[in-house]
């Protein structure tokens, strides 16, 4: 099996799976319980939080565990937006955000003005335009660190500095789902940051929200006092411990892995461009080495996907036969002949440079076959 859909989700590392299996029997007690069993679990939870805080270089009390980035995005965005509903104001975002950002903002479109940054055919934005949109009454800026369909990296550190240097009350939210532990980032000028465990070989159902201590808002869900009461409910303690394990392993190996996936992406891209005509590369030059988006002229991405799965090569597409193309690919302004043939390859430590010739051979074969139909 050659799994190239690591943006959708990753396979947990062996060590993570073992940690989860062990923990689920051992650390079953409720961290809120007063007895010593509860205390032990509470301390384990604290250790993970501490470890994450130190990696993110933030305070321990600023890290909140959630069920994943979708929930983190919701807590952060709805929290900030609801707080500003009465007073009103503006939001800046991009048109190619993940649905868990895009659709949250859309929920409030009747009450709030949204300024969308324009993106070019690589999904990139312009900082000049950003500066010009940033107003005194802009109360929220939300943008992803790495685009999940294209790999485009946004200059979020610089955007943070611009916000800090401008007379505005804007809170800065960054959806870090595809960049977390993969593309380096300093959270110094960022107020809210979301991430998921299952994109870095951790279990599904766990994620985090970093919230700068200066930002305050009401929770979306009311309940107990867990996670600073912004995410109440008994913690997914086993998931969180396994997430912690995944983060520590990523911390050790991310540099090496970055080099590894960069080589694979480069080899695949060069191979495809030299062997197949009519290919448009949607990922920009300096994109995340984990993500490669390509559009093949005159074929359907989904058909290519199904042919490749026959050889146990698993990729993804942004366009389903019936559903047209995704909102991200739509924004790129590609010719229809290309946009329907958009596929995405996402890499991980499990992929090997040795597999590249085989993958290339299959791509060349099937693209030709489909074009001959």
């Amino acid at each position, binding site marked *: 099996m050659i799994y190239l859909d690591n943006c959708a989700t990753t396979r947990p590392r062996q060590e993570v799976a073992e940690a989860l299996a062990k923990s689920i029997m051992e650390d079953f007690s409720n961290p809120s319980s007063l007895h010593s069993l509860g205390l032990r679990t509470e301390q384990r939870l604290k250790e993970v939080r501490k470890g994450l805080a130190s990696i993110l270089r933030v305070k321990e009390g600023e890290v909140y565990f959630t069920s994943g980035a979708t929930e983190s995005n919701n807590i952060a965005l709805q929290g900030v937006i609801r707080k500003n509903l009465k007073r009103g104001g503006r939001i800046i975002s991009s048109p190619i955000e993940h649905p868990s950002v895009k659709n949250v903002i859309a929920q409030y479109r009747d009450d709030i003005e949204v300024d969308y940054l324009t993106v070019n055919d690589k999904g990139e934005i312009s900082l000049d335009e950003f500066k010009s949109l940033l107003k005194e009454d802009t109360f929220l800026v939300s943008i992803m660190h790495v685009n999940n369909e294209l790999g485009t990296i946004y200059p979020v550190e610089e955007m943070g500095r611009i916000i800090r240097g401008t007379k505005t009350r804007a809170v800065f939210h960054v959806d870090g789902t595809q960049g977390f532990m993969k593309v380096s980032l300093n959270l110094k000028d960022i107020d809210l940051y979301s991430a998921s465990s299952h994109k870095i070989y951790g279990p599904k159902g766990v994620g985090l929200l970093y919230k700068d201590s200066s930002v305050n808002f009401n929770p979306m869900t009311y309940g107990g006092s867990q996670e600073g009461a912004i995410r109440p409910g008994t913690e997914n303690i086993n998931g969180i411990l396994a997430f912690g394990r995944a983060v520590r392993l990523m911390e050790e190996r991310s540099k090496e892995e970055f080099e590894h996936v960069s080589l694979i992406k480069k080899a695949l891209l060069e191979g495809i461009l030299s062997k197949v005509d009519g290919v448009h590369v949607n990922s920009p030059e300096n994109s995340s080495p984990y993500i490669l988006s390509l559009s093949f002229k005159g074929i*359907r991405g989904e058909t290519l996907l199904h042919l490749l799965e026959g050889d146990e090569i698993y990729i993804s597409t942004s366009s389903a036969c019936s559903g047209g193309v995704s909102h991200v690919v739509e924004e790129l302004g590609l010719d229809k002949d290309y946009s329907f043939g958009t596929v995405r390859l996402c890499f991980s430590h499990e992929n090997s440079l040795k597999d590249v010739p085989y993958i290339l051979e299959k791509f060349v074969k099937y693209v030709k076959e489909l074009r001959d*139909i």
Partner: protein
Amino acid sequence: MNKVISISFGELALKGGNRKYFEASLAGDIRRAIGDIGYEKIYKDQGKLYIEADERDFPTIINRVRKIFGIAYVSECLRVDKDIDEIGRGSIDFMRDHRGARRTFKVRTKRSDKAYPMQSNDINMKIGGVILDGFPDMTVDVHEPEIMFYIDIKKEAYIYIDRVEGQGGLPIGTSGRGISLLSGGIDSPVASYLMAKRGMKIDAVHFHSYPFTSERAELKVIELAEILSRYIGKFKVYSVNLAEIQKAINKGANERYMTVLSRRFMMRIAERVALKRRAQCLITGESLGQVASQTIEGITASNAVSNLPVLRPLIAYDKTDIIEIAKDIETFEKSIEPYEDCCTVFLPKHPVTRPKLEDVEGEEAGLDVDFLVEEALKTIKIIDIG
């Protein structure tokens, strides 16, 4: 005195000489439908079937039995000895339990036992009086009674009020076998249902074109088939890959003929499946003029390749009427889910809407039809439903 469930037949009450066969078939269907519930007995008493079972299971039994084709009504009734005083006592009990807030009634007796000493009218009068005495707040209304109080005099007497309507139709298997062309759309499940309701034993053929369609499209059809099986029982879906045929058509014929040529191949393959299953006809969900391939010319072109009769129960239905049935049999919600077949890859921009048969045959001339059909038959996957 005890409660039983009575089952009135629909049309098969009229079937004369074949009646015994229909009744036996229906009794079998009922046994299959409630076998897991643990009823005591199913028996016949002059033109109706009766089920003896634990009263607590009545609602479940009634709900299942009413979905079986060939049944007009299902009722909960009280079985009593034929003695008129017994009938009177039973009537009081039954009325008390079942009248609810209703106040007006009329007694209607059906006397199948012609040797019974009282005439129907006399029984009506007698029991009417008993009820009036027993319930001083009730009155008789012969024109528009709130309660029609039925008494059937047979080997024993049966008292009942409310009749739950069944599906009508004929018991499955009494009208032969058919192969239905089942897609993931709205129409074909309805067509299959309607033919099954007329007593036909159905199996289905499904065409996909993986890798041009997703596996999810096939799963959707299987889920639709599972819904259908609530009515038509166990059956088989023969899933056939049409991709190679579509590729061949795309290469060897004018793309405007894609749809009609594909249909012709589907009919040929379905016919082969039908012969194998000893089915006597094909069933499609075509409705005249609904889409480009369902013009009379399009239908003529696809019809021409089948030697079996092709039944099209929806041919004169409006889409809205088809949707209504689809909602009623609960296939609609599943049918409108996405993952519809994405033969869109091959969908011509301007399909011929009124293809002439000789032109269609001309376009097909360059294709090795027999070979393509044989190859497609090799891709068949058989899925057991129900």
